[in-house]
């Protein structure tokens, strides 16, 4: 589904918590939220590539986002699979702590990411919203889909 954001449009975001941060990702790019699935490890991969999961017959790569963003993160025992899908029908699954509500925000409100966010997080985020009680980092799905291995 192609969504074109005009300047004053409302965008729906799926939100989630990862470590101490609050993120949002464009809802139309989220394929599903899945429970913990049996993981098959892939040899010779960096540690943030957790493995492969079987989603109704589709083999999807699962990424431990904590490890990707913070090099020395611990093993996750409790997480949720946030499965993203791009316009070419490629999927990738991110291990996140838990998922929040779906919220609607105006495209006007998106701001640049502040300097104090660490570099590895900045790489995967394309903007930020100041909400009433917290900040929401907007995940850059295309960046993740295309450059997750870099």
């Amino acid at each position, binding site marked *: 589904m192609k969504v074109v954001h005009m300047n004053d449009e409302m965008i729906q975001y799926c939100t989630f918590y990862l470590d101490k941060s609050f993120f949002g990702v464009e809802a139309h790019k989220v394929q599903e939220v899945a429970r913990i699935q049996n993981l098959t490890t*892939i040899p010779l991969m960096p540690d943030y590539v957790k493995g492969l999961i*079987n989603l109704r017959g589709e*083999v999807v790569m699962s990424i431990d986002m904590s490890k990707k963003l913070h090099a020395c993160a611990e093993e996750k025992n409790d997480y949720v699979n946030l499965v993203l899908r791009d316009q070419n029908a490629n999927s990738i699954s991110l291990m996140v702590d838990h998922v929040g509500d779906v919220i609607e925000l105006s495209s006007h409100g998106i701001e640049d990411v502040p300097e104090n966010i660490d570099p590895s997080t900045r790489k995967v985020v394309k903007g930020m919203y100041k909400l009433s009680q917290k900040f929401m980092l907007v995940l850059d799905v295309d960046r993740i889909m295309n450059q997750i291995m870099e």
Partner: protein
Amino acid sequence: MNENQELIAAFVEESIEGLDAFDQDLVELEKKPDDHEVINKIFRVVHSMKGTGSFFEFEKLVTLSHTAENLLDDIRGDKLQATAEIITILLETSDVLRKILHNIDKTQAEGEIRIQELLEKIHLCRTTQLESEQNQTQGVEENPEPSHHRMQIVTESSIRVDIDRLDRLMNLVGELVLCRNQVLQYSKSLYDTQFAIVSQRLSHVTTDLQEIVMQTRMQPIERIWGRYPRVIRTLANSCNKKVRLIMTGEDTEIDKTLLEIINDPLTHILRNSIDHGIEDPEYRLRSGKPEEGTIYLSAYQEGGQIIVEIRDDGKGINASYVKQQAVKKGIITEAQSQSLSDRDAINLIFVPGFSTVDTVTDMSGRGVGMDVVKEYIEHAGGVVELTSEVGVGTCIQIKLPLTLAIMPGIVLGTCKSKYVVHQASLVELICLEDDEIPDKIEFIRNVAVYRLRGAVIPLICLDEVLNEGRTLFDVIDQNSTINIVVLQAARRQFGLVVECIHDTQEVVVKPLNRFLQKMQIFAGATILGDGGISLILDVGGIARRANVEAIRKEALEVIGVQAQEELQDKSVQFVVFEGQDGGQMGLPLLDIYRLEKISLNDIQKIGLHHVMQYQNKILLLIDVRQVVEERRKQLRNTDLALSEIYKNAHHLYVAVYEDGHEKFGLILSPNVDIMQIEVENTSKPTRAGVLYSTIMGNKITEVLNVSEIIAMSYRKRMNVSESIGVPAEL
């Protein structure tokens, strides 16, 4: 879409297909201006377009095709010669017809296309040549019915299906295969005969279904290649170069979606080749090359992938020039360019924003660069590789996965996980007992090799290659039997030591994420019968990663003089059998893929060919005795059944050979022997098909030349078929 629109859409689709063949045939016609079969094919296309077009009242289309039809009729009636000028005009006509069809497709109307000029050109063509013929002929009618025109009845034996439906069908079949695997798994543990019988039946039906559904989506790569001769002709003409295109493997089948994806990249590569690769005729002659440049386009299937190669004999890519350009464009620094190897340097052309030619020609270089080509192909899950030699030529190899392929696999296990290998890569399975190890496995510094019947092959350990914690030595230490899987990649063999060998399964290949695919270690993933995900190994990638070639080299060095002699000594194994006149014939065992003992009943004759079922395919058989000329030069009746020739035999030995991606078999005789001899004194061959004669087991033995025999067999089939008027191809 209402009914009329549907009819129009079908008409447009058919017409475009017809024009594709039209273009291809025109290029053919230019080479063979008197080939009436081709002329008729071309004629029929415009004829039917005129007919159906008039039904829809597409006036311009009808007028143009009618005029072209008249021109073709003149050619058909031998009143006109198909000169290069005429071919070009007809190709131009094809283009204009396409434009009209395009408009019809989009707007249901012909649109504002001017055809007057083209009509006049065609008319001029006809009259100028015709005028010179006026002296010989009397009044010429429009469209006379030539007496030699053969009527051909074309029957409808196909149906158009929406590709989305085929996609969904494929997915469902994939799921069915997975389910079937699970059912078979349960069946094994249940010991219920009734259930076992039913699940076997399910299995057979599923296999057949899967094969047929896969085939519906497969089209020969010729579908896109068909346009290339014309493209080459146009480009070569505009660059004032002489180029010919040689295509092999055009019948290689490839999934329809992949076809669409690689068409543009291939076209672009061809353009590059002509524009920048092939030199102009005078330069070529001066360099000692033939005036006409050649582009070789080939396609074949190997181990679950489609390989497409484009090779030219042009001037190659100059690494230093590329480096220069790259530094100029700021892609790399001067320092970096110093340390770059030539091989890495030429791959810089894949970097976005790169174009080696300063002046952008119309054909290539503008907008579409090699970086886009690479992206297209990687998007499809494939890889591109470029090799080049200055002055010699350039070769671009594209590997594409058979995406939703269902492949016969063999499941291997390391101590931690299961992996699948395509059966096509499997040479043999070896199980070594402890006491055999000293004889068969040799340790040289840090590496190991295995003695496989006289050859020395590198030995690697899967656990070690995949970093799963154990080394080759661990595995050998900890196990009393060693499992070695002998695999083949790029025609070279190596042995893979694994913890265990599970079973064979037909598995559904699920494509992997692009990045994983690029690493070329895993070719895909699958879901096994037990529900778990298993990675499919890319045999070539594993070999490269484990540095198999380096091991091979090192081993051959270290094994040294004594073993070198042993290896190179002329002691070779031969398959020896009785020839047709009582003499003995031999074939080197090493070249043979498999030596099979086949029951006579399994060999069938279809037309002029002997065939048999082998590994789920039809294997073409060549009867050695019938191909190698008899000394007595008797006329052999090729209609004799094998059972008559080989009386009293129930079985025949067939030597199966692998020729690139195809297999064929040589029928030897009811009995064979294996002899290991040192070939010392050889004498020149006495007849075609024989490499040399030598003594084996006290008998004069003719060692056969397999490739020559193939060629002879092919020629024989062509000759016989011509004389009895039957097409040589099945």
